[in-house]
C-alpha cells in the first residue's frame, strides 16, 4: 500500500455543539505502526502492523465516547497512545489544549494523574501478592500526595465510594469476586481524581447482573466527579447505554462516528450496519424480525491491509472504486453535521443490506 494520505484533521473530529469550547482530549490524525522484524542475528524490518492509521476524535468534558470494533481493529492501541503508555508514530494528542504527544517520562508525569485506565481482566490487572489497600494506595505513594494514616484514610474512603467494605483493606485480590475486583480497579483509577478515565472493556469479563452493578457505579462517579470516559467495548448494547458519542473502528481506521443515536438508528457505513445487525438482542421477537447481515470472511491482517477501503473485501456493497480509492471520513448528504462516515456508497435509509447478494470471501 502507498503512503497514507494525510487526512483533514478537522473533518475527522466529533463536533458536539455542547462541547465545542470544552474539549478535554483531542486526537488528530493519530498513527501507530509496529514494525515487524525478521532475520536472525541482524534483525530487519519487513513490514508494519498498521494498528492505528489516521484516527481523529474529540472527547468533551463530562462526556462518554464509546469506541467499538472487532478484535485487532486498534481500539486498545489507540487507548494506550492517548494515555501516553506507548509512543505514537505520528499525529497529535492534545489534553486541555496542551500537546502531550510523545512527552518524556518526567514531562508526562503531571498528565498521568489526569488520565487513568481501567482494564478488562479483573484477575490479571491486580497483583495477587499485594493487599488491596496497597494496590489502591499506590497512586498516592507514586505521586507523593498522601502518606501513612492519611493515605489509609483516603484509600478507605475510595473503597467505600466504589461499594467495597473499607474493612477489607488488608485482603488480597484472590479473596474478592470478579465484580469486586473490577471495583478495586475503579478505585485505583479514581484515586488521583483524574479528568479522563479510559475504560478498556471494563465489564466484558463480568456476568450480566454484576456488569449492571459496575456500569451503574461508573455512571454515578461520572455524575459526581464530572469525569470523561473513553469507553472501549465490543458489546454494542453496553456502549449504547453509556455513551453520548460513538466511534466505530475497522482495521485501524474510523469507519463511522457521530452522536449515539445517529450511529445506532441510522448507520451509514455498511460495517456499522452489519455490526449492529449482528449484535444479539435479548428479545426473541426482535431477533426473528430483524434482517441480520452476515458478513463473509474474517478481519484482514493489519500488516497487509486491503487496498482502497479496508472493508471492501467483506462489504456487501463494494464496487470497483472501493478497491482503488480510500474513502475520506466526511459528513454525508442529509446527515447531521456531527455524523461522519468513511464510505463511497453509504447505506441509504430504506436499504436492506441483508438482501444485497453475499460475496465470496477472498
Amino acid at each position: 500500500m502507498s503512503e497514507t494520505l494525510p487526512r483533514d484533521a478537522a473533518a475527522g473530529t466529533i463536533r458536539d455543539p455542547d462541547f465545542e469550547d470544552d474539549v478535554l482530549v483531542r486526537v488528530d490524525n493519530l498513527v501507530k505502526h509496529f514494525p515487524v522484524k525478521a532475520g536472525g542475528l541482524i534483525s530487519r524490518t519487513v513490514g508494519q502492523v498498521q494498528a492505528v492509521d489516521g484516527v481523529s476524535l474529540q472527547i468533551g468534558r463530562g462526556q462518554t465516547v464509546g469506541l467499538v470494533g472487532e478484535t485487532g481493529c486498534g481500539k486498545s492501541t489507540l487507548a494506550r497512545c492517548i494515555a501516553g503508555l506507548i509512543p505514537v508514530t505520528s499525529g497529535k494528542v492534545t489534553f486541555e489544549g496542551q500537546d502531550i504527544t510523545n512527552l518524556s517520562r518526567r514531562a508526562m508525569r503531571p498528565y498521568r494523574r489526569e488520565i487513568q485506565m481501567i482494564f478488562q481482566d479483573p484477575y490479571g490487572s491486580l497483583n495477587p501478592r499485594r493487599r488491596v489497600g496497597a494496590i489502591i494506595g499506590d497512586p498516592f505513594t507514586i505521586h507523593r500526595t498522601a502518606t501513612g494514616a492519611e493515605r489509609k484514610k483516603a484509600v478507605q474512603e475510595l473503597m467505600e465510594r466504589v461499594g467495597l467494605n473499607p474493612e477489607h483493606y488488608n485482603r488480597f485480590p484472590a479473596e474478592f469476586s470478579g465484580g469486586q475486583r473490577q471495583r478495586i480497579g475503579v478505585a485505583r483509577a479514581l484515586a488521583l481524581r483524574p479528568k479522563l478515565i479510559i475504560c478498556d472493556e471494563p465489564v466484558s469479563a463480568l456476568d450480566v447482573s454484576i456488569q449492571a452493578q459496575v456500569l451503574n457505579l461508573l455512571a454515578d462517579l461520572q455524575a459526581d466527579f464530572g469525569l470523561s470516559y473513553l469507553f472501549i467495548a465490543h458489546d454494542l448494547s453496553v456502549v449504547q447505554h453509556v455513551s453520548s458519542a460513538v466511534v466505530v473502528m475497522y482495521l485501524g481506521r474510523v469507519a463511522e462516528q457521530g452522536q449515539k443515536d445517529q450511529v445506532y438508528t441510522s448507520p451509514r457505513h455498511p460495517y456499522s450496519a452489519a455490526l449492529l445487525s449482528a449484535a444479539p438482542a435479548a428479545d426473541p421477537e426482535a431477533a426473528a424480525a430483524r434482517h441480520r447481515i452476515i458478513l463473509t470472511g474474517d478481519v484482514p491482517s493489519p500488516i497487509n491491509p486491503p487496498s482502497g477501503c479496508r472493508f471492501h473485501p467483506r462489504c456487501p456493497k463494494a464496487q470497483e472504486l472501493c478497491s482503488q480509492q480510500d474513502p475520506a471520513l466526511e459528513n454525508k448528504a442529509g446527515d447531521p453535521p456531527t455524523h461522519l462516515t468513511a464510505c463511497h456508497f453509504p447505506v441509504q435509509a430504506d436499504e436492506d443490506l441483508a438482501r444485497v447478494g453475499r460475496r465470496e470471501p477472498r
Partner: protein
Amino acid sequence: MTLLDVKNLAVNFPTADGVVKAVRGVSFSVDAGRTLGIVGESGSGKTVLTQTLLGLTPGGDVSGQALFDGTDLLALTDDEMRKVRGAQISVIFQDPLTSLHPLYKVGWQIEEMIRVHDRSVSRKEATDRAVDLLEKVGIPQAKQRVNDYPHQFSGGMRQRAMIAMALSLSPKLIIADEPTTALDATVQAQILDLLLRLQQESNTALIMITHDLGVVADIADNVMVMYAGRAAETASKHDIFYQPHHPYTKGLLESIPGSSAGAERLKPISGQPPSLIRLPPGCAFHPRCTYVMDRCLTEEPKLVAVGSAGAHRSACFLPVSAIGLGGDTEELRKKAVSEHRRAAAAEVAEKIAAAPESEGSVIV
C-alpha cells in the same frame, strides 16, 4: 421424540474445604432436532452438568439418571462411554485455540476423530471426509487449509474447524459450551447461522450453554435458567423472555442494557452468586431476592408448573399466576410478599434494599 432425558442429576465434588455441590438435582429433556438453551452465570453448574453426561467429571460424586436413546449414560463403563462420546454426542468448547492441539494439522485432528471410531476407514478416505467437512462449515480452499496448523486459522475459522470435528461422525446430539463467547459480533453471527443451518440439515439436537441471553433469543427452542446448581426456571423461549416467573430470570432480563428502554439506570441483581460449598439455607437465591418471603429462608422451592401452559416450570414460592414483566404481575408479587413476610425475611429484604448495588458487605 425425546432423545435425552435427564432425571434428578446431582454432582458433588469433595474438596479440602468441603463438598462443592455443583449440580443439585436437575431434570430436563431434549427432543431430536430441537435446541435447548442453558443459561446461567459463572459457577451456576451449567458446564459441570453437561460434562457429567459425557463422563468428563472425574472425581465427582454423580447420582441420578440420564437416558440417551434408552441407555443410561451415567451407568456406562469408560469403554462404552468412549463409543458414545464423539460418535453419538459431540461437544464444541468455548475456546477453539486450546481445544485444538497446536502441533497437529487441523485436518489430521479431524481424521483422527473419524479413524478412532472406525478403524476400517483408510487414511485417504478420512482426509477426503475432513476436506468435505471443512467445506461444509465454510472454510475457503479446504483442500489446502486441511494441511494448516491451528495457529494459521483465525478465531472464527478455528471454531468452524471445531464444528467440523463435532459433525464428523453425524452425532445425534451436539453440546455447544459457550461456542461464540470468544468471538467478535460479526463472526458470532456467522457461527450461529452455520450451527442453525447444519442442525436443520441433519436433524441434530443441540444443547447450547451460554451466559448470553441474546444468543439464546436467537437460536433456542426451550430454555433452562440455572442458579447455584439447580434449575430456577424452564420454559419455551417465548415464556422465558416475555412471561418469566422466577425473580432471578426477571433480574437477568432487567440487567441487560437496553432492556429497560430509555431508563438511565440499569437494574442489577444485588449481591453475588453464593459459594457452592456453603449454600444459603432455603432458596439459594433468597439473599439477593427482592421478593424474599418467610418460606424462602427455610424451605427450598421445587420446580412446579406455573402460568397456563404446562411446559413452563419455575422454582419459586411466588403465586403461579405471577408471570410476566408488567405492572399487574408486579402487584401480584407485591401482594404475596406483603402477606408472607415476617421478621426474619423482612430483615433480609431490608439488607438487600439498603445495599442494592454494593457488594462490599458480602463476605466471600
